[in-house]
């Protein structure tokens, strides 16, 4: 099948800043994203685990954005500014899609 090269940004960030991340993504003109819940994890600030927790602090989520390579730098710079003062990790990878126009 004929496919097109796109980029996928994977943002593992804190739940309390999710709204902010979403707003910046939308403002950057991203056409879509999907958010996944994480269960637990470990990083430079130590371990965390959602089991039993009631507040939003200490919850990490993963935001997945598939986008056109042209938009990557702009979106990335914007999101990096939002996420970097917080806990979390951003990675970029190559993906292929079938319908180019949707991203």
């Amino acid at each position, binding site marked *: 099948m004929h496919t097109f090269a796109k980029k996928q940004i994977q943002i593992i960030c804190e739940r309390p800043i999710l709204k902010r991340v979403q707003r910046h993504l939308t403002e950057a003109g991203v056409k879509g994203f999907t958010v996944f819940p994480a269960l637990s994890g470990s990083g430079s600030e130590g371990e965390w685990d959602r089991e*039993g927790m009631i507040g939003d602090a200490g919850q990490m989520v993963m935001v997945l954005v598939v986008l056109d390579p042209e938009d990557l730098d702009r979106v990335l710079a914007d999101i990096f500014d939002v996420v970097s003062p*917080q806990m979390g990790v951003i990675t970029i990878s190559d993906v292929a899609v079938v319908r180019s126009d949707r991203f």
Partner: protein
Amino acid sequence: MNEILALASANLLSPAVLFFALGFLGTMAGSQLTLPEAVAKTLSIYLMLAIGFKGGVAVAEHGLGIDILLALGAGVVLSALIPLVAFALLSVMARLDRVDRAAVAAHYGSISIVTFVAASEALRVAGLSFEGYLVAVAAVMETPAILVALYLAHAGGARPGANARSGARQEGLLSEVMLNSSVVVLIGSFVIGFLTGPKGLADIGPFIVDPFKGVLCLFLLDMGAVAGRGIRSGWKHMSPGLVLFGLVMPYVGAVFALGAGLAIGLSTGGVAILMVLGASASYIAVPAALRLALPEARPSIYLTLSLGITFPMNLTIGIPAYIALARLANG
């Protein structure tokens, strides 16, 4: 004195505290006794709904007066004042940088609604009642502490970079805090309880009154497990001075609240509840707000203190002590 011991042992041997201990000790021993997140969140909403509603019904029954305004004012003052004291104490007792000190201070100015709930059960056992509107006071005490702490954090010029984006960071912070679901459910249920009164309570009492204590036990099992896990993973970030702070600061807050409670003429039970509010430290609204407003502050410090040290201390020893003090003082 005997009475105090009786109160303390009644509290320590109540199912609620024992389930908390089960969660705490079981987790320390390596078991996983937490509830799923979705359920833990729901139980905390249930407790807030129940306590808010009952408070509203109590106010509907006893009427609304100037005293409620006085109490709300006292709550705001306490919530703004206690962080200042906590911040000063921390400067002496521990080596933390300014931002962490401010963050911890915010937690102690704010309140823990579960401690409130546990205290109201202990009061019932002790045969005391309290002013229903204190639920509303609890709700207003969430916010001022955060604002004062932000001021404290930035007053001295926070860590380099901390101010850089603070404009962006503060976007919508206030509304975020005041619209935090726990605050809205508490106040909303209070208002609904007030509007529907005893008739409303008769309707939904079999849900929010009868099983309340049992639900509290289940919830405290979870809280104990979370507190135990917090201690396990956060212990390495604690210094003796910090631990001492976590044990002593509640009494400082309680004494301020005692003064305020006597000044505005609360009943003995009411004074005890206000002391509990002064003594308890937040672990829902404030941590979430601080991740937005002070991301440089370390949760491993403020959450370990508030959930791992102060909450268990209040639940076991603090509550009977505050009740006893309130009795002595209001004598």
